Each structure stands twice: as C-alpha cells, then as structure tokens.
C-alpha cells in the first residue's frame, strides 16, 4: 500500500519535471537567456583586470571572492559540527 502511494507520488513529480524540461530553450543555443552581457564582460575583462588565464579562477577568486569566503566558512562549520557531535561524552 505504501509502495503504491510512493510510486504515484514519484510519477506525479516526474511528470511535472519532464513537462518543464520539454519547454526549456534548446541545449547549446547561443541566444540563451543565461548568455546575457554579464559572462561576456567577465570573459573580455579577465586577462587585463586580473591577469589569470583561467576565467573560472578569476571569477571565483577576484570578481566574486566574497562567495568563496562564505564557502570556506561552510567547510569550517562542517568540521566543527562533525567534531562536536562525535566527541561529546
């Protein structure tokens, strides 16, 4: 009984997701809504403003370095949480 309810629920979720995927823009289209002027600015200004040849490195460490600081904090919190859980008497 629970198995049949689970399968019906999963089928509904899968149907909604597949119907959304069929309406998305074509894969690999240069006219995507995600290819607006922001990535063009990052690619063109990467070598003069940061000096790094790897564009993704200059994005995560120069243009958006604050997000990398938040992510180092998340790593730190994971260690603190795991150690505090395992070493409690």
């Amino acid at each position, binding site marked *: 009984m629970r198995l049949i309810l689970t399968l019906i629920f999963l089928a509904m979720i899968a149907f909604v997701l597949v119907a959304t995927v069929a309406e998305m823009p*074509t894969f690999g289209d240069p006219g995507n809504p995600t*290819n607006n002027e*922001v*990535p063009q600015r990052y*690619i063109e200004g990467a070598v003069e403003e940061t000096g790094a040849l790897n564009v993704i490195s200059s994005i995560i460490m120069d243009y958006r370095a604050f997000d990398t600081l938040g992510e180092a904090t998340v790593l730190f919190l994971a260690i603190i949480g795991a150690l505090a859980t395992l070493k409690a008497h």
Partner: protein
Amino acid sequence: MIDFADVAMRLFENMYYLVSVILFVIGFHTMLTHSNLIKKVIGMNIMDTAIFLFFVSTGYVQGGVAPIIEPGVEQAYINPLPTALILTGIVVAVSVTAFALSLVVKIYEHYGTLDAEEIMRIRSTES
C-alpha cells in the same frame, strides 16, 4: 491535442536535462523506499549530483571550448558563470554528507541498529 512526435523531438534535443530529471527521481526513490539509514544518505547524494548536472549544462554554447584563454587565438568560449557557482555547491553537498554520516554514527551507538523502522519502534516503546 498533444503532438507526441513534437514533444519527443524536443526532449531528444534537451537530452542532458532529461537525464538529470531521471537521476533526480532515482535518488528520490532511493531515499523514500529503503529503510537503511546509509542508503538514505546515498540517495540524498544522488539528488545533489542530478541538480549539479542540470545547472552546469545550461551554460553550454554550441562550438565553444573550455574557458582557458589562449593569448592571440579568437575562439568562442562557453558560459563560465554556472560552473563557478556550482563549485561552491559541491563543497556544501560534501559538508552536509559528512555531518549526516557523523549523526548516523551516533544513532548507531545509541540504538544498536541502522534500520529506520526498528528505531521508530524502539522509540515508541521507551518512555
């Protein structure tokens, strides 16, 4: 009413998104059905991987190469922004998995079993 050949053609063009939806449903089914705690953690990891695949594959440009600039060669590069955002997401997924596994270790020490239904039965009889 619904043109099945048209829908199937569009799904075949967006094959990467369709595969990521299939992976997401597989991970969700693993998390709901099995009663072993470690299998539920593995299911959560599979769902995370499906979301990363979906997000990164929105940045592909036809005929583009990896965004390592060679000085003097004019090329079309792919969109680097979704890849840079998912790097942070991968680290968050690893941290959540590590914390969940440490909680599973403490649960096993306290109850002596890894079965979710056994644990619920033990908790309902102890006062």
